[in-house]
């Protein structure tokens, strides 16, 4: 987000309220970028767990090597299946939460944009560069 000078040179009063709106907009913008990264990695994790679940169904070994921390522990297949289901559910839930948060923030940003553009018109630039 940049604030560009007004080309017409007209004196635009900036109140403390305006400044706070700009600050909030900046915070929300940063939060959206962070959320995008989080959503991306959560989606990846979900996909990986899906793939793992599918592989598990195809494989017919009794003992599966399941990664815990840095090592692969030999765990019976049923336990692994349960574990993967649990992890998948947890990841999908957190993904949902992240996407909801992003949606609400995008709405807030749109509202702020309206307010700020109404006051400053051309003197402010709130778009992604």
């Amino acid at each position, binding site marked *: 987000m940049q604030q560009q000078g007004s080309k017409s*040179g007209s004196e*635009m009063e*900036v109140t403390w309220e305006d*400044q706070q709106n700009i600050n909030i907009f900046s915070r929300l913008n940063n939060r959206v970028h962070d959320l995008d990264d989080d959503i991306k990695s959560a989606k990846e994790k979900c996909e990986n767990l899906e793939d793992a679940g599918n592989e598990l169904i195809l494989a017919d070994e009794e003992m599966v*090597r399941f990664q*815990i921390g840095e*090592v692969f*522990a*030999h765990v019976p297949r049923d336990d692994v299946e349960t574990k993967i289901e649990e992890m998948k559910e947890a990841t999908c839930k957190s993904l949902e939460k992240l996407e909801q948060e992003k949606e609400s923030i995008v709405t807030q940003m749109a509202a702020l944009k309206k307010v700020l553009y109404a006051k400053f018109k051309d003197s402010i630039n709130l778009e992604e560069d």
Partner: protein
Amino acid sequence: MSSSSPSGSGSDLTERRGIPAAKFIQDVETYLSQSGLDPNSALAFHQERLQQYKVVEMKLLAQQRDLQAKIPDIEKCLEVVATLEAKKGTGEALLADFEVSEGIYSRACIEDTDSVCLWLGANVMLEYSCEEASALLKNNLENAKASLEVLVADLQFLRDQVTVTQVTIARVYNWDVHQRRVKQVTPTAIAAADS
């Protein structure tokens, strides 16, 4: 040069953990006359402030990255300890494949055990009972998460100050441009009126 502009409006804090707050200016003209600065000096001062903020931001971002890497590590350790604890009652040994070197794995047979060793850093490893290890790791995790929260709040405060400073720079610059334009127009108007 410390900025103590009385025409600035009250922000909530004057500084946070060593980061000075950027004072918000209600009126550019009042600010310039009260601080006795000409527009260029004011601009230079605020630009320098902006640079200082950027330096602090880099430092905080690096700290944040470190913490964000540390937290999953601690969580992994907790998982392993929990697995060992779960196996304790059964009397079975836990078979685990671990990496000896890149691409080379070996099998370990972990007997039923009450204690684990935790790497504390600085070439020190201590033996703990499973419960103590769990408690210690949970404590470390809590501390790391709390530090991360404080850090994130610091970064938000810092970004607000950066935004305020950027807006101030833009306003001082615009005011200066406006003043020059007015000065150019006025003599011409007087000359036109005289002739």
